Protein backbone atom coordinates (compact mmCIF):
# COMPACT_ATOMS: atom_id res chain seq x y z
CA UNK A 1 0.00 0.00 0.00
CA UNK A 2 1.07 3.62 -0.26
CA UNK A 3 0.02 6.60 1.78
CA UNK A 4 -0.55 10.08 0.47
CA UNK A 5 0.93 11.61 3.58
CA UNK A 6 -2.35 13.39 4.26
CA UNK A 7 -4.99 12.37 6.80
CA UNK A 8 -7.94 13.81 8.70
CA UNK A 9 -7.01 15.02 12.15
CA UNK A 10 -10.36 13.89 13.54
CA UNK A 11 -12.19 10.58 13.48
CA UNK A 12 -15.83 11.64 13.34
CA UNK A 13 -16.33 12.51 9.70
CA UNK A 14 -19.43 13.72 7.88
CA UNK A 15 -20.47 13.19 4.29
CA UNK A 16 -23.17 14.47 1.99
CA UNK A 17 -24.45 13.68 -1.48
CA UNK A 18 -24.67 16.67 -3.81
CA UNK A 19 -25.96 14.85 -6.85
CA UNK A 20 -27.12 11.34 -7.75
CA UNK A 21 -26.60 9.17 -10.85
CA UNK A 22 -28.87 9.99 -13.80
CA UNK A 23 -31.88 7.65 -13.69
CA UNK A 24 -31.77 7.38 -17.47
CA UNK A 25 -28.41 5.69 -17.38
CA UNK A 26 -28.57 3.97 -14.02
CA UNK A 27 -32.30 3.11 -13.70
CA UNK A 28 -31.84 0.51 -11.01
CA UNK A 29 -30.34 2.93 -8.50
CA UNK A 30 -32.89 5.12 -6.73
CA UNK A 31 -31.40 7.81 -4.49
CA UNK A 32 -32.29 5.92 -1.30
CA UNK A 33 -30.37 2.92 -2.59
CA UNK A 34 -27.37 5.08 -3.50
CA UNK A 35 -27.40 6.43 0.07
CA UNK A 36 -27.40 2.94 1.54
CA UNK A 37 -24.66 1.70 -0.80
CA UNK A 38 -22.45 4.68 0.12
CA UNK A 39 -23.20 4.07 3.80
CA UNK A 40 -21.94 0.51 3.43
CA UNK A 41 -18.89 1.76 1.54
CA UNK A 42 -17.95 3.99 4.47
CA UNK A 43 -18.66 1.11 6.85
CA UNK A 44 -15.96 -0.94 5.09
CA UNK A 45 -13.41 1.56 6.46
CA UNK A 46 -15.03 2.15 9.84
CA UNK A 47 -14.98 -1.62 10.40
CA UNK A 48 -11.18 -1.53 10.21
CA UNK A 49 -10.32 1.78 11.90
CA UNK A 50 -11.77 3.98 14.68
CA UNK A 51 -13.65 6.22 12.26
CA UNK A 52 -17.30 7.24 12.25
CA UNK A 53 -19.19 8.56 9.24
CA UNK A 54 -22.40 10.55 9.52
CA UNK A 55 -24.48 11.54 6.50
CA UNK A 56 -25.71 15.11 6.36
CA UNK A 57 -29.13 15.25 4.80
CA UNK A 58 -30.26 17.60 2.08
CA UNK A 59 -31.63 20.92 3.31
CA UNK A 60 -34.88 22.58 2.18
CA UNK A 61 -33.18 24.21 -0.79
CA UNK A 62 -32.41 20.73 -2.02
CA UNK A 63 -28.69 20.95 -1.50
CA UNK A 64 -26.57 19.18 1.07
CA UNK A 65 -24.49 21.73 2.90
CA UNK A 66 -20.99 21.09 4.31
CA UNK A 67 -19.67 17.71 5.19
CA UNK A 68 -16.06 16.57 5.09
CA UNK A 69 -16.62 14.26 2.15
CA UNK A 70 -18.96 15.60 -0.53
CA UNK A 71 -20.11 13.05 -3.08
CA UNK A 72 -21.08 14.15 -6.58
CA UNK A 73 -21.99 12.40 -9.80
CA UNK A 74 -20.55 14.62 -12.55
CA UNK A 75 -19.84 14.48 -16.26
CA UNK A 76 -16.82 15.34 -18.43
CA UNK A 77 -15.59 18.86 -17.44
CA UNK A 78 -16.84 19.55 -13.93
CA UNK A 79 -14.53 22.40 -12.88
CA UNK A 80 -12.00 20.55 -10.83
CA UNK A 81 -9.37 20.21 -13.50
CA UNK A 82 -9.89 16.47 -13.79
CA UNK A 83 -12.53 15.97 -16.49
CA UNK A 84 -14.19 12.61 -16.90
CA UNK A 85 -14.20 10.90 -20.26
CA UNK A 86 -17.64 9.41 -20.88
CA UNK A 87 -18.44 5.77 -20.34
CA UNK A 88 -15.46 3.54 -19.49
CA UNK A 89 -11.96 4.95 -19.09
CA UNK A 90 -11.82 6.90 -15.85
CA UNK A 91 -14.64 6.01 -13.45
CA UNK A 92 -14.16 8.29 -10.45
CA UNK A 93 -11.65 10.24 -8.38
CA UNK A 94 -11.38 11.71 -4.90
CA UNK A 95 -9.28 14.36 -3.21
CA UNK A 96 -7.04 13.58 -0.26
CA UNK A 97 -7.77 14.93 3.22
CA UNK A 98 -6.74 18.49 4.05
CA UNK A 99 -8.05 21.93 4.89
CA UNK A 100 -8.89 22.89 1.30
CA UNK A 101 -12.53 23.22 0.33
CA UNK A 102 -12.04 20.38 -2.13
CA UNK A 103 -10.37 18.05 0.36
CA UNK A 104 -12.15 14.71 0.67
CA UNK A 105 -14.52 15.43 -2.20
CA UNK A 106 -15.39 12.34 -4.24
CA UNK A 107 -16.63 12.48 -7.82
CA UNK A 108 -18.17 9.64 -9.80
CA UNK A 109 -18.44 9.73 -13.60
CA UNK A 110 -22.16 10.09 -14.32
CA UNK A 111 -21.67 8.66 -17.80
CA UNK A 112 -21.01 5.25 -16.32
CA UNK A 113 -23.87 2.77 -15.93
CA UNK A 114 -23.76 2.40 -12.16
CA UNK A 115 -25.24 -0.66 -10.58
CA UNK A 116 -24.75 -2.92 -7.60
CA UNK A 117 -25.16 -6.55 -6.66
CA UNK A 118 -22.86 -8.23 -9.14
CA UNK A 119 -24.13 -7.15 -12.53
CA UNK A 120 -21.04 -7.76 -14.56
CA UNK A 121 -21.83 -5.63 -17.59
CA UNK A 122 -22.07 -2.41 -15.61
CA UNK A 123 -19.87 -0.68 -13.00
CA UNK A 124 -20.42 -1.63 -9.40
CA UNK A 125 -20.97 1.53 -7.36
CA UNK A 126 -20.11 -0.08 -4.02
CA UNK A 127 -16.71 -1.33 -5.23
CA UNK A 128 -15.69 2.03 -6.71
CA UNK A 129 -17.05 3.92 -3.69
CA UNK A 130 -14.94 1.92 -1.22
CA UNK A 131 -11.87 2.61 -3.39
CA UNK A 132 -12.52 6.37 -3.70
CA UNK A 133 -13.33 6.75 -0.01
CA UNK A 134 -9.92 5.14 0.62
CA UNK A 135 -8.41 8.14 -1.22
CA UNK A 136 -10.66 10.56 0.65
CA UNK A 137 -9.22 9.13 3.86
CA UNK A 138 -5.62 9.47 2.68
CA UNK A 139 -4.65 6.27 0.92
CA UNK A 140 -2.94 6.16 -2.47
CA UNK A 141 -3.10 3.34 -5.00
CA UNK A 142 -1.77 -0.06 -4.07
CA UNK A 143 -0.04 -2.66 -6.21
CA UNK A 144 -1.09 -5.46 -3.87
CA UNK A 145 -3.54 -8.13 -4.94
CA UNK A 146 -6.01 -8.41 -3.38
CA UNK A 147 -6.52 -4.76 -2.47
CA UNK A 148 -9.48 -2.43 -2.99
CA UNK A 149 -6.93 0.31 -3.67
CA UNK A 150 -5.68 -1.20 -6.89
CA UNK A 151 -6.17 1.49 -9.56
CA UNK A 152 -8.00 -0.75 -12.05
CA UNK A 153 -11.65 -1.75 -11.81
CA UNK A 154 -11.74 -5.49 -11.21
CA UNK A 155 -15.48 -6.11 -11.16
CA UNK A 156 -17.90 -6.14 -8.21
CA UNK A 157 -16.58 -7.24 -4.84
CA UNK A 158 -19.87 -9.04 -4.13
CA UNK A 159 -21.72 -9.28 -0.83
CA UNK A 160 -22.11 -5.64 0.22
CA UNK A 161 -23.34 -5.92 3.83
CA UNK A 162 -20.62 -8.41 4.75
CA UNK A 163 -17.74 -6.92 2.75
CA UNK A 164 -14.34 -6.99 4.51
CA UNK A 165 -11.26 -5.04 3.42
CA UNK A 166 -8.22 -7.05 2.37
CA UNK A 167 -5.33 -7.15 4.85
CA UNK A 168 -3.28 -4.68 2.78
CA UNK A 169 -6.07 -2.10 2.99
CA UNK A 170 -6.62 -2.70 6.71
CA UNK A 171 -2.94 -2.18 7.45
CA UNK A 172 -2.93 0.99 5.35
CA UNK A 173 -5.91 2.63 7.05
CA UNK A 174 -4.72 1.52 10.49
CA UNK A 175 -1.33 3.08 9.72
CA UNK A 176 -3.15 6.42 9.46
CA UNK A 177 -5.89 6.18 12.10
CA UNK A 178 -4.85 3.37 14.41
CA UNK A 179 -6.70 0.21 15.10
CA UNK A 180 -10.29 -0.01 16.15
CA UNK A 181 -10.71 -0.62 19.91
CA UNK A 182 -6.97 -0.54 20.47
CA UNK A 183 -6.01 -3.87 18.92
CA UNK A 184 -2.58 -3.88 17.25
CA UNK A 185 -2.52 -3.19 13.54
CA UNK A 186 -3.57 -6.20 11.51
CA UNK A 187 -5.44 -7.68 14.48
CA UNK A 188 -4.53 -11.01 16.07
CA UNK A 189 -1.81 -11.86 18.52
CA UNK A 190 0.32 -8.83 19.52
CA UNK A 191 3.30 -11.00 20.27
CA UNK A 192 3.40 -12.83 16.98
CA UNK A 193 2.15 -10.47 14.27
CA UNK A 194 0.07 -12.35 11.76
CA UNK A 195 1.71 -13.04 8.44
CA UNK A 196 -0.37 -12.17 5.43
CA UNK A 197 -2.32 -15.27 4.49
CA UNK A 198 -1.63 -16.62 0.98
CA UNK A 199 -4.23 -15.75 -1.66
CA UNK A 200 -7.00 -18.39 -1.82
CA UNK A 201 -6.50 -21.09 -4.48
CA UNK A 202 -8.30 -20.17 -7.67
CA UNK A 203 -10.19 -22.94 -9.43
CA UNK A 204 -9.31 -23.21 -13.10
CA UNK A 205 -12.99 -22.93 -13.94
CA UNK A 206 -14.70 -20.05 -12.15
CA UNK A 207 -17.11 -21.80 -9.70
CA UNK A 208 -20.74 -20.83 -9.92
CA UNK A 209 -22.20 -21.23 -6.44
CA UNK A 210 -25.66 -20.29 -7.61
CA UNK A 211 -25.67 -22.94 -10.34
CA UNK A 212 -27.66 -25.49 -8.39
CA UNK A 213 -30.23 -23.00 -7.14
CA UNK A 214 -30.68 -21.38 -10.55
CA UNK A 215 -30.78 -24.52 -12.63
CA UNK A 216 -33.23 -26.61 -10.65
CA UNK A 217 -36.22 -24.26 -11.19
CA UNK A 218 -39.10 -24.22 -8.70
CA UNK A 219 -39.38 -20.42 -8.61
CA UNK A 220 -41.68 -18.70 -6.17
CA UNK A 221 -42.63 -16.00 -8.67
CA UNK A 222 -41.82 -14.98 -12.24
CA UNK A 223 -42.57 -11.50 -13.61
CA UNK A 224 -42.09 -9.58 -16.82
CA UNK A 225 -41.05 -6.12 -15.56
CA UNK A 226 -40.21 -3.51 -18.16
CA UNK A 227 -39.36 -6.21 -20.65
CA UNK A 228 -37.00 -8.10 -18.33
CA UNK A 229 -38.01 -11.37 -16.71
CA UNK A 230 -37.39 -11.65 -12.98
CA UNK A 231 -37.20 -15.11 -11.40
CA UNK A 232 -37.77 -14.93 -7.65
CA UNK A 233 -36.62 -17.74 -5.40
CA UNK A 234 -36.24 -17.52 -1.62
CA UNK A 235 -34.50 -14.27 -0.71
CA UNK A 236 -32.91 -13.87 -4.17
CA UNK A 237 -33.82 -13.24 -7.77
CA UNK A 238 -32.28 -13.62 -11.22
CA UNK A 239 -32.94 -11.25 -14.12
CA UNK A 240 -33.06 -12.08 -17.79
CA UNK A 241 -32.80 -9.17 -20.20
CA UNK A 242 -34.86 -8.62 -23.34
CA UNK A 243 -32.23 -10.27 -25.49
CA UNK A 244 -32.52 -13.40 -23.34
CA UNK A 245 -29.15 -12.93 -21.70
CA UNK A 246 -28.87 -13.31 -17.94
CA UNK A 247 -27.78 -10.12 -16.17
CA UNK A 248 -25.61 -12.17 -13.82
CA UNK A 249 -25.10 -15.80 -12.90
CA UNK A 250 -25.13 -14.65 -9.33
CA UNK A 251 -28.55 -13.93 -7.86
CA UNK A 252 -29.21 -10.49 -6.40
CA UNK A 253 -30.70 -10.14 -2.94
CA UNK A 254 -34.35 -9.06 -2.89
CA UNK A 255 -33.77 -6.85 0.14
CA UNK A 256 -31.01 -4.88 -1.59
CA UNK A 257 -33.07 -4.18 -4.70
CA UNK A 258 -36.72 -3.97 -3.71
CA UNK A 259 -36.69 -1.39 -0.93
CA UNK A 260 -39.62 -1.62 1.44
CA UNK A 261 -40.39 -5.32 1.70
CA UNK A 262 -40.33 -6.64 5.27
CA UNK A 263 -36.83 -7.53 6.50
CA UNK A 264 -36.23 -11.25 6.24
CA UNK A 265 -38.56 -11.65 3.24
CA UNK A 266 -37.60 -15.00 1.74
CA UNK A 267 -40.63 -15.94 -0.35
CA UNK A 268 -42.57 -13.88 -2.88
CA UNK A 269 -45.92 -15.41 -3.99
CA UNK A 270 -46.49 -13.44 -7.18
CA UNK A 271 -45.44 -10.25 -8.93
CA UNK A 272 -46.73 -8.36 -11.99
CA UNK A 273 -46.27 -4.93 -13.55
CA UNK A 274 -49.47 -2.91 -13.75
CA UNK A 275 -49.64 -1.45 -17.23
CA UNK A 276 -51.91 1.48 -16.36
CA UNK A 277 -49.21 3.22 -14.32
CA UNK A 278 -46.14 0.97 -14.52
CA UNK A 279 -46.31 0.22 -10.82
CA UNK A 280 -45.06 -3.22 -9.73
CA UNK A 281 -47.37 -5.25 -7.47
CA UNK A 282 -45.95 -7.79 -5.05
CA UNK A 283 -48.14 -10.43 -3.33
CA UNK A 284 -46.91 -12.10 -0.16
CA UNK A 285 -49.48 -14.10 1.83
CA UNK A 286 -52.58 -12.03 2.64
CA UNK A 287 -50.83 -8.70 1.81
CA UNK A 288 -49.80 -6.79 -1.28
CA UNK A 289 -47.36 -3.96 -1.98
CA UNK A 290 -47.27 -1.39 -4.77
CA UNK A 291 -43.78 -0.35 -5.89
CA UNK A 292 -42.78 2.72 -7.81
CA UNK A 293 -39.69 1.42 -9.57
CA UNK A 294 -37.77 -0.41 -6.85
CA UNK A 295 -39.18 1.40 -3.82
CA UNK A 296 -42.43 0.46 -2.08
CA UNK A 297 -44.92 3.30 -1.98
CA UNK A 298 -45.98 4.61 1.40
CA UNK A 299 -49.12 3.11 2.90
CA UNK A 300 -48.19 -0.45 1.94
CA UNK A 301 -48.57 -3.36 2.62
CA UNK A 302 -52.36 -3.45 2.37
CA UNK A 303 -54.68 -6.46 2.86
CA UNK A 304 -55.30 -8.77 -0.11
CA UNK A 305 -58.99 -8.76 0.87
CA UNK A 306 -59.23 -5.34 -0.83
CA UNK A 307 -59.18 -7.19 -4.14
CA UNK A 308 -62.49 -8.79 -3.19
CA UNK A 309 -61.52 -12.28 -4.23
CA UNK A 310 -63.68 -15.02 -2.73
CA UNK A 311 -63.50 -18.71 -3.61
CA UNK A 312 -66.56 -20.44 -5.02
CA UNK A 313 -67.25 -21.65 -1.52
CA UNK A 314 -67.34 -18.01 -0.44
CA UNK A 315 -64.08 -17.85 1.47
CA UNK A 316 -61.74 -14.87 1.24
CA UNK A 317 -58.59 -15.68 -0.71
CA UNK A 318 -55.52 -15.72 1.56
CA UNK A 319 -52.70 -15.90 -0.99
CA UNK A 320 -52.01 -15.53 -4.68
CA UNK A 321 -50.22 -18.25 -6.67
CA UNK A 322 -49.75 -16.34 -9.91
CA UNK A 323 -50.53 -12.91 -11.36
CA UNK A 324 -50.13 -11.53 -14.83
CA UNK A 325 -51.59 -9.18 -17.41
CA UNK A 326 -52.56 -11.11 -20.52
CA UNK A 327 -51.19 -9.05 -23.37
CA UNK A 328 -53.89 -10.59 -25.55
CA UNK A 329 -56.67 -8.53 -23.88
CA UNK A 330 -54.92 -6.31 -21.32
CA UNK A 331 -56.84 -7.85 -18.45
CA UNK A 332 -55.26 -8.72 -15.10
CA UNK A 333 -55.53 -12.35 -13.98
CA UNK A 334 -54.91 -13.63 -10.44
CA UNK A 335 -54.72 -17.33 -9.67
CA UNK A 336 -55.14 -19.08 -6.33
CA UNK A 337 -55.64 -22.76 -5.41
CA UNK A 338 -56.89 -23.87 -8.80
CA UNK A 339 -59.22 -20.89 -9.44
CA UNK A 340 -58.66 -17.59 -11.22
CA UNK A 341 -60.18 -14.09 -11.17
CA UNK A 342 -60.12 -11.43 -13.87
CA UNK A 343 -59.80 -7.71 -13.25
CA UNK A 344 -60.16 -4.69 -15.46
CA UNK A 345 -57.50 -2.19 -14.38
CA UNK A 346 -57.40 1.32 -15.79
CA UNK A 347 -57.01 4.96 -14.82
CA UNK A 348 -59.34 7.80 -14.09
CA UNK A 349 -57.09 10.90 -13.99
CA UNK A 350 -54.41 10.17 -11.43
CA UNK A 351 -56.47 7.43 -9.82
CA UNK A 352 -55.94 3.80 -10.77
CA UNK A 353 -59.18 1.82 -11.02
CA UNK A 354 -59.60 -1.89 -10.54
CA UNK A 355 -62.81 -3.82 -11.26
CA UNK A 356 -63.30 -7.50 -10.51
CA UNK A 357 -65.32 -8.83 -13.39
CA UNK A 358 -68.54 -10.80 -12.77
CA UNK A 359 -68.62 -14.54 -13.27
CA UNK A 360 -65.35 -15.17 -11.49
CA UNK A 361 -63.69 -17.22 -10.08
CA UNK A 362 -63.45 -19.84 -12.75
CA UNK A 363 -61.56 -23.13 -12.79
CA UNK A 364 -57.93 -23.19 -13.93
CA UNK A 365 -58.71 -26.18 -16.10
CA UNK A 366 -60.10 -23.69 -18.61
CA UNK A 367 -56.48 -23.01 -19.48
CA UNK A 368 -56.09 -26.35 -21.27
CA UNK A 369 -52.73 -27.96 -21.82
CA UNK A 370 -50.97 -26.19 -18.95
CA UNK A 371 -50.59 -27.13 -15.27
CA UNK A 372 -53.52 -26.11 -13.07
CA UNK A 373 -51.24 -25.22 -10.12
CA UNK A 374 -48.53 -23.06 -11.62
CA UNK A 375 -45.59 -21.17 -10.06
CA UNK A 376 -46.40 -18.02 -12.03
CA UNK A 377 -47.35 -16.75 -15.47
CA UNK A 378 -46.09 -13.93 -17.70
CA UNK A 379 -46.99 -12.45 -21.06
CA UNK A 380 -44.04 -12.61 -23.41
CA UNK A 381 -43.27 -12.43 -27.12
CA UNK A 382 -46.28 -11.67 -29.32
CA UNK A 383 -48.99 -11.78 -26.68
CA UNK A 384 -48.20 -15.37 -25.70
CA UNK A 385 -48.83 -16.56 -22.16
CA UNK A 386 -45.97 -18.42 -20.47
CA UNK A 387 -46.93 -20.75 -17.62
CA UNK A 388 -44.02 -21.67 -15.29
CA UNK A 389 -44.04 -24.73 -13.07
CA UNK A 390 -41.01 -26.39 -11.37
CA UNK A 391 -38.32 -26.38 -14.05
CA UNK A 392 -40.61 -26.29 -17.10
CA UNK A 393 -42.69 -23.71 -18.94
CA UNK A 394 -45.67 -24.02 -21.27
CA UNK A 395 -46.59 -21.45 -23.95
CA UNK A 396 -50.17 -20.65 -24.97
CA UNK A 397 -49.78 -18.93 -28.32
CA UNK A 398 -51.48 -15.69 -29.46
CA UNK A 399 -54.20 -15.49 -26.82
CA UNK A 400 -55.15 -19.12 -27.23
CA UNK A 401 -56.97 -20.45 -24.21
CA UNK A 402 -57.37 -24.12 -24.80
CA UNK A 403 -54.63 -25.85 -26.72
CA UNK A 404 -54.90 -29.62 -26.41
CA UNK A 405 -51.18 -30.36 -26.62
CA UNK A 406 -48.59 -27.93 -25.32
CA UNK A 407 -45.02 -29.24 -25.25
CA UNK A 408 -43.25 -28.00 -22.09
CA UNK A 409 -39.67 -26.70 -22.38
CA UNK A 410 -36.86 -26.26 -19.88
CA UNK A 411 -36.90 -22.96 -17.98
CA UNK A 412 -33.29 -23.44 -16.83
CA UNK A 413 -31.96 -23.99 -20.34
CA UNK A 414 -34.03 -21.39 -22.18
CA UNK A 415 -34.04 -18.60 -19.59
CA UNK A 416 -31.24 -19.09 -17.06
CA UNK A 417 -28.15 -20.15 -18.99
CA UNK A 418 -28.06 -23.63 -17.58
CA UNK A 419 -26.65 -26.52 -19.56
CA UNK A 420 -29.14 -28.97 -21.02
CA UNK A 421 -29.24 -32.10 -18.90
CA UNK A 422 -27.04 -34.82 -20.48
CA UNK A 423 -29.05 -37.01 -22.84
CA UNK A 424 -27.51 -40.23 -21.57
CA UNK A 425 -27.26 -40.83 -17.90
CA UNK A 426 -23.75 -40.25 -16.71
CA UNK A 427 -22.53 -41.41 -13.34
CA UNK A 428 -23.75 -39.02 -10.75
CA UNK A 429 -20.31 -38.28 -9.35
CA UNK A 430 -17.80 -38.44 -12.19
CA UNK A 431 -14.95 -38.90 -9.75
CA UNK A 432 -16.13 -42.46 -9.36
CA UNK A 433 -15.15 -43.13 -12.95
CA UNK A 434 -11.71 -44.62 -12.97
CA UNK A 435 -9.43 -45.49 -15.84
CA UNK A 436 -6.02 -47.07 -15.76
CA UNK A 437 -3.58 -48.54 -18.18
CA UNK A 438 -5.34 -51.87 -18.28
CA UNK A 439 -8.90 -50.50 -17.93
Amino acid sequence: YALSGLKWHKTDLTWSVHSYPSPSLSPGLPNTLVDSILTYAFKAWSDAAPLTFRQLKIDSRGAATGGDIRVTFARLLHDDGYPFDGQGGTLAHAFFPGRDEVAGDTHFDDHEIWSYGGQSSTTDLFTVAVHEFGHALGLSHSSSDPSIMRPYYQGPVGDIPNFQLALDDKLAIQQLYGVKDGRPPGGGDPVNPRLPSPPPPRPTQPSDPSFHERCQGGFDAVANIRGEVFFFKGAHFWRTKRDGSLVSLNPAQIKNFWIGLPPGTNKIDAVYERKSDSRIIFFIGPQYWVFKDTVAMSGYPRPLSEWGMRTRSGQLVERVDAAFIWAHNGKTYLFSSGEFWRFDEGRRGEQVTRQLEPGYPRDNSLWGGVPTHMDDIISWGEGDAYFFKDNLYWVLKNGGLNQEVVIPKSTAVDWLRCPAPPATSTPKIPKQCNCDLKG
Partner: protein
Amino acid sequence: SAVPDQFSRAVDWLSRYGYLPPPDPRTSKLQTKEGMEKAIRVMQRFGGVPETGQLDNETLKLMSTPRCSLPDIVGSEDMLKRRRRRRR
Protein backbone atom coordinates in the same frame (compact mmCIF):
# COMPACT_ATOMS: atom_id res chain seq x y z
CA SER B 1 6.66 -2.11 -31.98
CA ALA B 2 3.61 0.00 -31.30
CA VAL B 3 2.03 2.03 -34.09
CA PRO B 4 2.66 5.81 -33.56
CA ASP B 5 -0.80 6.84 -32.28
CA GLN B 6 -0.74 3.90 -29.89
CA PHE B 7 2.65 5.20 -28.71
CA SER B 8 1.43 8.74 -28.22
CA ARG B 9 -1.66 7.47 -26.41
CA ALA B 10 0.61 5.43 -24.19
CA VAL B 11 2.69 8.54 -23.45
CA ASP B 12 -0.47 10.43 -22.51
CA TRP B 13 -1.61 7.55 -20.32
CA LEU B 14 1.74 7.19 -18.56
CA SER B 15 2.02 10.94 -17.91
CA ARG B 16 -1.55 11.15 -16.73
CA TYR B 17 -1.14 8.43 -14.15
CA GLY B 18 2.20 9.58 -12.84
CA TYR B 19 4.62 7.21 -14.58
CA LEU B 20 6.12 9.88 -16.81
CA PRO B 21 6.73 13.51 -15.97
CA PRO B 22 4.27 15.67 -17.88
CA PRO B 23 5.85 17.02 -21.08
CA ASP B 24 7.46 20.40 -20.43
CA PRO B 25 6.71 22.76 -23.37
CA ARG B 26 9.46 25.15 -22.34
CA THR B 27 12.28 22.68 -22.61
CA SER B 28 10.47 20.83 -25.42
CA LYS B 29 12.26 17.78 -24.21
CA LEU B 30 10.96 14.65 -25.93
CA GLN B 31 10.40 11.40 -24.12
CA THR B 32 13.46 9.20 -24.57
CA LYS B 33 13.16 5.57 -25.49
CA GLU B 34 14.89 4.63 -22.25
CA GLY B 35 12.57 6.87 -20.26
CA MET B 36 9.55 5.29 -21.90
CA GLU B 37 10.77 1.77 -21.31
CA LYS B 38 11.50 2.52 -17.67
CA ALA B 39 8.06 4.06 -17.17
CA ILE B 40 6.39 1.07 -18.82
CA ARG B 41 8.31 -1.29 -16.54
CA VAL B 42 7.18 0.58 -13.42
CA MET B 43 3.62 0.56 -14.68
CA GLN B 44 3.77 -3.17 -15.43
CA ARG B 45 5.22 -3.96 -12.02
CA PHE B 46 2.59 -1.82 -10.27
CA GLY B 47 -0.22 -3.32 -12.33
CA GLY B 48 0.89 -6.92 -11.86
CA VAL B 49 1.55 -7.77 -15.51
CA PRO B 50 4.83 -9.22 -16.82
CA GLU B 51 7.58 -6.61 -16.78
CA THR B 52 8.75 -6.37 -20.40
CA GLY B 53 9.19 -2.61 -20.84
CA GLN B 54 7.20 -2.98 -24.08
CA LEU B 55 3.67 -1.99 -25.05
CA ASP B 56 2.64 -5.63 -25.38
CA ASN B 57 -0.94 -6.84 -25.51
CA GLU B 58 -1.33 -7.40 -21.79
CA THR B 59 -0.01 -3.92 -21.08
CA LEU B 60 -2.30 -2.29 -23.63
CA LYS B 61 -5.21 -4.25 -22.24
CA LEU B 62 -4.48 -3.03 -18.72
CA MET B 63 -4.19 0.54 -20.02
CA SER B 64 -7.67 0.27 -21.47
CA THR B 65 -9.21 -1.15 -18.27
CA PRO B 66 -11.62 1.28 -16.58
CA ARG B 67 -9.92 2.79 -13.56
CA CYS B 68 -9.67 5.54 -10.99
CA SER B 69 -8.50 8.89 -12.35
CA LEU B 70 -5.94 9.46 -9.60
CA PRO B 71 -2.30 8.90 -10.55
CA ASP B 72 -0.63 5.76 -9.31
CA ILE B 73 2.68 7.23 -8.42
CA VAL B 74 2.13 9.72 -5.59
CA GLY B 75 3.78 12.91 -6.56
CA SER B 76 1.71 15.04 -8.90
CA GLU B 77 1.84 18.29 -7.00
CA ASP B 78 -1.45 19.86 -7.89
CA MET B 79 -3.47 17.18 -6.16
CA LEU B 80 -1.37 17.04 -3.05
CA LYS B 81 -0.01 19.59 -0.69
CA ARG B 82 2.63 17.42 0.87
CA ARG B 83 4.05 14.17 -0.37
CA ARG B 84 5.26 11.36 1.77
CA ARG B 85 5.52 7.78 0.70
CA ARG B 86 5.90 4.89 3.02
CA ARG B 87 6.84 1.47 1.87
CA ARG B 88 6.18 -1.69 3.71
